């Protein structure tokens, strides 16, 4: 089971690479998405999923992130055939296999219990994403890919250095330096403190770059701005969640080794800084896809902030991981539709999306209210939980700043979103794109999840999140 979650997408990727038909190749995506989702549901139902002598194992945190990745990929895979049918001018011979390799590698990250193996999988996602970002093959997409590749690789190289530091700390403590997660957490109190400290800083910077926390976020607006909607969704929803999972693994080791206070302060500081940077750059943003990238920076800040606050904040942060991923799917896919219809990403050219694309426009608007934390949508619940945690656990100033940033982001983002959806559409129609079932239904599915989780958290989802929170805090 654990192995199948990685090998099945790889087999589909090989099939996609071998398949000669440009027209039928995209249909492998929904096929693989469905199989992967079914495997995930089966795996979540079992108490113990492991393979290769404990190298791969689904723990409580892994279960949560795997569920998020699988659902998000499923929705994207339903959207992909209709999207690629509109892009027949570009070959999808590389695009489709890379998406499937991406799914395999994210599953591998989630399941790895060996930190070296996890690093290999994370670097592999960086590489699988490069051709995805470069799909459009124009000057701007080359620029975005180059920046993404270079900054991402440097970040991941620093994370490798941090992983080696951690292994050395274990070696020096006479543990024969194992890089198995469970061993390191158990033996953390015996690890050498200076090495542990240096390792955590390097790993935070490295995987923080991958997550897109400010000030390591500079690749993000370029990459998300130029990426096709599906790729934006998978980067902002799935890959960032996996990078966050990696960060949490090291947070757990650092906390068990007596560095919890330092780690939490670092996370609160960087979390608030990310939110502030996002607020500043969103204020007069004219490119609505870059705006979504800054929204992602903001939400990554919220995730680490929740962990930094601790206690109830950890639960809020992990719930927000789910909500952020699903909401980002709504935003990126509907923004992709609007981009297709108008041929422009600038709020100066795009007006009246509600008229020209009634469904995509409405979903984009609803997604905006959801992503900025308005009730009754799901992110409201998780953001409220984090604020409550801050207020009741002696971080009143942090809570107040958090609310202030949310308000700034709401205003900044609102200006751009309303400019896009309201008004009269311009006369000429560059591409003649219209809403159709294949490009709207997957977004509506994600929106339905956002609304459902906002009004009622099903017990199974609640248990998934609270188990993961207990796991991160070392209570499970």
């Amino acid at each position, binding site marked *: 089971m654990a192995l199948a979650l990685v090998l099945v997408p790889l087999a589909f990727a090989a099939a996609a690479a071998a398949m000669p038909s440009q027209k039928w190749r995209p249909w492998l995506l929904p096929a693989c998405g469905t199989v992967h989702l079914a495997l995930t549901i089966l795996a979540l139902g079992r108490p113990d999923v492991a393979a290769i002598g404990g190298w791969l194992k689904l723990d409580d945190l892994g279960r949560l992130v795997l569920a998020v990745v699988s659902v998000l990929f499923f929705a994207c895979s339903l959207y992909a055939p209709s999207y690629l049918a509109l892009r027949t001018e570009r070959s999808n011979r590389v695009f489709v296999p890379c998406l499937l390799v991406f799914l395999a590698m994210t599953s591998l990250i989630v399941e790895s219990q060996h930190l070296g193996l996890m690093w290999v999988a994370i670097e592999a996602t960086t590489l699988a994403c490069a051709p995805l970002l470069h799909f459009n093959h*124009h000057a701007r997409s080359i620029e975005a890919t180059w920046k993404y590749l270079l900054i991402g690789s440097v970040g991941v190289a620093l994370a490798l250095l941090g992983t080696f530091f951690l292994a050395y700390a274990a070696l020096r403590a006479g543990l024969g330096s194992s890089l198995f997660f469970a061993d390191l957490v158990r033996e953390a109190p015996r690890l050498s403190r200076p090495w542990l400290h240096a390792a955590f800083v390097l790993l935070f910077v490295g995987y923080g770059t991958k997550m897109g926390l400010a000030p390591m976020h500079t690749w993000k607006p370029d990459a998300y701005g130029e990426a096709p909607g599906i790729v934006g969704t998978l980067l902002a929803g799935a890959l960032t969640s996996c990078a966050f999972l990696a960060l949490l693994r090291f947070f757990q080791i650092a906390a068990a080794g007596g560095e919890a206070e330092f780690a939490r302060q670092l996370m609160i500081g960087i979390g608030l800084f990310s939110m502030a940077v996002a607020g500043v750059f969103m204020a007069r943003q004219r490119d609505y896809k870059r705006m979504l990238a800054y929204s992602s920076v903001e939400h990554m800040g919220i995730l680490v902030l929740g962990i930094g606050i601790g206690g109830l904040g950890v639960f809020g942060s992990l719930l927000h991981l789910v909500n952020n991923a699903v909401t980002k799917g709504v935003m990126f896919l509907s923004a992709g539709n609007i981009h297709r219809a108008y041929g422009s990403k600038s709020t100066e050219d795009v007006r009246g999306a509600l008229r020209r694309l009634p469904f995509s426009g409405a979903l984009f608007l609803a997604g905006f209210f959801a992503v900025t934390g308005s009730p009754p949508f799901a992110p409201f619940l998780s953001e409220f939980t984090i604020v409550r945690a801050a207020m009741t656990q002696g971080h009143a100033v942090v809570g107040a700043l958090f609310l202030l940033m949310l308000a700034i982001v709401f205003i900044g983002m609102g200006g751009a979103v309303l400019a896009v959806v309201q008004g009269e559409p311009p006369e000429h129609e560059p591409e003649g794109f219209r809403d159709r079932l294949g490009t709207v239904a997957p977004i509506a599915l994600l929106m339905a999840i956002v609304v459902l989780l906002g009004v009622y958290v099903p017990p199974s989802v609640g248990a998934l999140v609270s188990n993961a929170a207990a796991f991160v805090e070392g209570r499970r």
Partner: protein
Amino acid sequence: MQVAVDPLLVVLLLVNFFLLGTSRLRALISGSASQGALLALLVLSVHGGITLQAALIALATIALKTIVIPAMLTRALRDAAIHREIEPVIGFVPSLLLGGLGTGLSLVFARTLPLAPEHAGSLLVPASLATAFTGFLLLATRRKAITQVVGYLALENGVFVMGLTLVEAMPLFVEIGVLLDLVVAIFVMGIIIEHISREFSSIDTTRLSSLKE
């Protein structure tokens, strides 16, 4: 064989300065290739003899870092028809001085980290940090895409040297996985460089400036 480790590391540090000081791109690529060969020798001497794992890793390192990657970079250089790094953000002499400063600071910082008895007094940790710092400097201050790739390689080499302290600990297939990821990364970068030079008729990354706030 252990005695050879420190002299090899000193040569590695000297190559770092060569990378920082040269403006000819071909020399830069040769410097990077020679670092690959040094790393392979280091693997053998740290393992203290020719074990199967050491031989495999050393062979893979030579094959990738001394042959495959430099060949790919040389081809990219020929296709783009350029020879020199011109107008770096920081001049060559200041970047040499910065490199010297970084090496000194690495020595000081490594002192503050407690070492295991078998590594006491060894240059492995400071050499690792200094090489990684050199890579950073090249990445941040040079404009040609190829120089940036060489910078990334130097950064990776620094991390690799740190990995040498863990030879007994790292499973073989994780090390091979790391090397494989590296070569794929350089391969993908090579493809993108080709696209850059076709699209912009240059591999000067300062032309990549249409995306900004």
